[in-house]
């Protein structure tokens, strides 16, 4: 993407004011999408973003500048800007000029795609949308509206820093989603399904978009008969796959080292403590090939890793990026990510999941006298400093006398992370990954995956309207 000479010169400029660390991040991203709505392929969009972000770290101060101008002068200007702020603000006295030598190597080993989406005709992509639309509408006369979206992206990145690191990656992601509206006497209801993988167009060899469309349609139709959700606190069983969102919010964010370092996490200072029941083993794993949150190197050039965060209930470690790890004199855990070259990296999750337990899912439901079964979760939010979090239920049912009974309407559930971890009393053996997600933090969105087997929390508060 850029030759070694130019990178070395840029790093040299970035260090010229005496900073301790400098980094060049180059990104070239191409995206394309197609949208069908209201029975028609409405629009295809394609875009290109290319640029570099230059970071300079001195003591506790980071200077950052980015540019879409990848010429020698454009990079030099950005490097000087980043260097100046780091120096001014850390009152650096060092005037040593460090030499930088980024070696050759770090070549890209292929892409994450077997079939490059850019090699697939637009007409083929558009046909997938039409197939999904037809399948959703054929699912029932109640289906009154359907939209379907196809998207792909190829993101090539290069990271080089003053420690001599030089690494590249070529990340291809492909996504497909279907959203349906069903109309009935009770008004409008919605159903959505999506699939996204860090692979190419081969996604559609393993995924039938018409199945996806039928599931989305069925969800909307089912909810036409939904009763108002209950209110108050009761046992909640979360189905396979979806529960990952619960852990992402209940403790995932709280285990990010940047929040921990500022004591803005209820999990600060708790490594080694039994924070969950022994049934819980929580892992964040960027190496899971093909998964939505997968990459080979993070956006700081560090290899993705399999990181055990909670082992049989005991908190073992947090997630780390370069800045936070450097301060603690340890290695990054490969969790330094950024939305694009226009942003500073920070600690982010990848694919976050709970390992299988030994319970049979049917036993977990049968053992719940009365409560709520959440079949699909719809995102959430957490305040890491208090541990209070919410997550949405987009498909849920009452559990009555140990059986799943009537559907209930959409709403949030609320709980407290550290409390929830101690209330997990059953973990099933039916692990599944959930839907692809976009995790937002500090204004940056990155793709993340999650997964869980069926599990039960003995008490969560359901945000319904029924008494």
């Amino acid at each position: 993407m850029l030759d070694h000479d130019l990178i070395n010169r840029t790093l040299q400029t970035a260090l010229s004011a005496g900073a301790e660390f400098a980094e060049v991040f180059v990104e070239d991203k191409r995206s394309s999408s197609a949208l069908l709505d209201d029975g028609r392929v409405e629009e295809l969009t394609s875009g290109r973003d290319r640029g570099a972000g230059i970071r300079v770290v001195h003591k506790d101060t980071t200077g950052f500048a980015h540019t879409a101008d990848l010429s020698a002068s454009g990079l030099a200007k950005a490097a000087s800007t980043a260097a100046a702020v780091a120096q001014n603000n850390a009152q650096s006295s060092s005037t040593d000029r460090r030499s930088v030598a980024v070696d050759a190597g770090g070549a890209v080993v292929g892409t994450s795609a077997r079939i490059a989406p850019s090699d697939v005709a637009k007409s083929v992509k558009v046909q997938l949308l039409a197939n999904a639309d037809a399948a959703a509408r054929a699912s029932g006369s109640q289906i009154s509206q359907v939209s379907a979206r196809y998207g792909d992206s190829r993101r090539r990145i290069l990271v080089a820093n003053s420690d001599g690191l030089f690494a590249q990656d070529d990340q291809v992601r492909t996504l497909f989603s279907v959203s349906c509206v069903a109309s009935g006497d009770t008004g409008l209801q919605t159903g959505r399904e999506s699939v996204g993988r860090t692979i190419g167009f081969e996604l559609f060899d393993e995924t039938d978009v018409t199945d996806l469309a039928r599931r989305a349609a069925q969800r909307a139709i089912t909810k036409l008969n939904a009763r108002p959700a209950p209110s108050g606190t009761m046992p909640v069983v979360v189905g396979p796959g979806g529960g990952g969102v619960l852990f992402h919010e209940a403790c995932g964010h709280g285990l990010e080292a940047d929040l921990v370092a500022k004591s803005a996490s209820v999990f600060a200072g708790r490594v080694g403590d039994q924070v969950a029941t022994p049934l819980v083993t929580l892992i964040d794993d960027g190496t899971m090939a093909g998964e939505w949150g997968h990459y080979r190197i993070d956006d700081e050039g560090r290899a993705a890793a399999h990181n055990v965060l909670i082992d049989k209930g005991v908190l073992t470690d947090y997630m780390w990026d370069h800045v936070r790890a450097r301060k603690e004199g340890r290695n990054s855990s490969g969790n330094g990510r950024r939305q694009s070259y226009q942003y500073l990296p920070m600690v982010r999750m990848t694919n976050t999941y709970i390992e299988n337990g030994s319970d049979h899912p049917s036993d977990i439901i049968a053992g719940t006298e009365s409560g709520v079964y959440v079949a699909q979760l719809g995102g959430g939010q957490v305040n890491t400093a208090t541990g209070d979090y919410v997550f949405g239920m987009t498909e849920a049912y009452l559990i009555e006398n140990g059986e799943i009974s009537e559907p209930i309407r959409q709403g949030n559930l609320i709980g407290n992370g550290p409390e929830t971890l101690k209330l997990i009393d059953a973990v099933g053996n039916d692990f599944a990954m959930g839907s692809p997600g976009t995790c937002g933090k500090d204004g940056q969105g990155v793709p993340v995956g999650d997964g869980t087997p069926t599990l039960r929390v003995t008490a969560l508060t359901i945000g319904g309207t029924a008494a």
Partner: protein
Amino acid sequence: MGDNGSVQPELLDIAKQVASWANPGEQLEVYVADATETEVRAYQGEVESFTSARSQGIGVRAVANGRQGYAYAGTLERSALTETLQEARDNAAFAEADEFNGVAVPDGVPAIDLNLCDASLESFATADKISLTIELERATLGADPRVSGIESAEYVDSQLQSAVATSTGIAIASRETGAYLASYAMAEAEGETQTGFGYSIARGPAELDVGAAATQAADRATRLLGAVKPSTSKLTVVLDPWVSAQLLGIIGATLNGDAVQRGRSFFADRIGEQVAVAELCLLDDATNPEAFTAAAVDAEGLATRPNTLINEGRLQGFLHNSYTARRSATASTGSAVRPGFKGAPGVGAQALALRPGQHSPEELIAGIDDGFLVQGVSGLHSGVNPISGDFSTGAEGLRIRNGALAEPLREVTIASTLQRILLDITAIGNDLVWLPMSAAGVSLVVADVMMSGT
């Protein structure tokens, strides 16, 4: 357009030039943007990070034979302009025809002269930005002895220049500046931590109020200390301006012509009906310079204008861009919005506000025997569905007992439906305030909301 003279002439020139490349029978809309931003974060008396950012980009919408395609590039290099146009044309070839597709056509409505720039930004030195940020952190930490730390204290300023040109004769440039301070405080007492957010926003740094942002963050955090989880009950809630503005944003999405035409709004076919209490008047008006999202022209280059959506509780109409207007055989309401240069214009509210009522928040609270003053909500994206109307969010704030504020509440949800909320409003406060979002907030009293706790 105010301050037009200082817009880089080349931005509008680029947009006009690309638009002039339209083939016979083809319509083009070209949006060009150039944004600069500075962000300073302070932590423990030092600069934690300093970001200096400049981004440019172009987005091209091409319409031919009723088919629409879009492409963008994050650069204004010459070669990118032709490539982007080519991509947009190629994309259009694969879309299906729609007789209502097309770019906007000049409609003769003059754009209001709005001055959205503050000249003080130009002369505000880097060192000043840094000291202001460090001062914000210090003021937040010093605002109350129970403030134990901050998650972040930041200063951001921005300058956005943009231009829209079409092959139908629209050619207009805009420029705006903005600056804000935001502080996230943590307060601690007896091992319990609570958080609060405070901000100050203006067109330029001279008007920013460090003290107000710091005090607000500290107050919001400390007033929650000792929070308890209440038992479940149905009661009256008072949504504070920060919360009611977010609610208005969701209501605005249901009043969008696009959602209505596609059967995604529960307000479809209800024009003229009583959908809210008689006191409620809802206006969307991007020409109001008080709004931080004010704009003289919309994303398609048509003049913005005031649009009354609900008057005395009756639904008056919907928001339209040029596509939805053609489809409904009406005129655009100047309500095209777009996600920067990376997407084609859609429809949306730009500056929503309720007509304020007579009473102060204190007077409203004094009239409530058992209630909940909600100062923060969470999970609006996961528990609120603007299509079905289901409304359920996490909430925090203070209990109201016998007309006075009482103990803080945490880990509860409030739930109703959007349809019910509009009809269950019992009072609107007089404390209207424009917030850093496309809506103003005002204290809003809503009866019969389910509060779910233990």
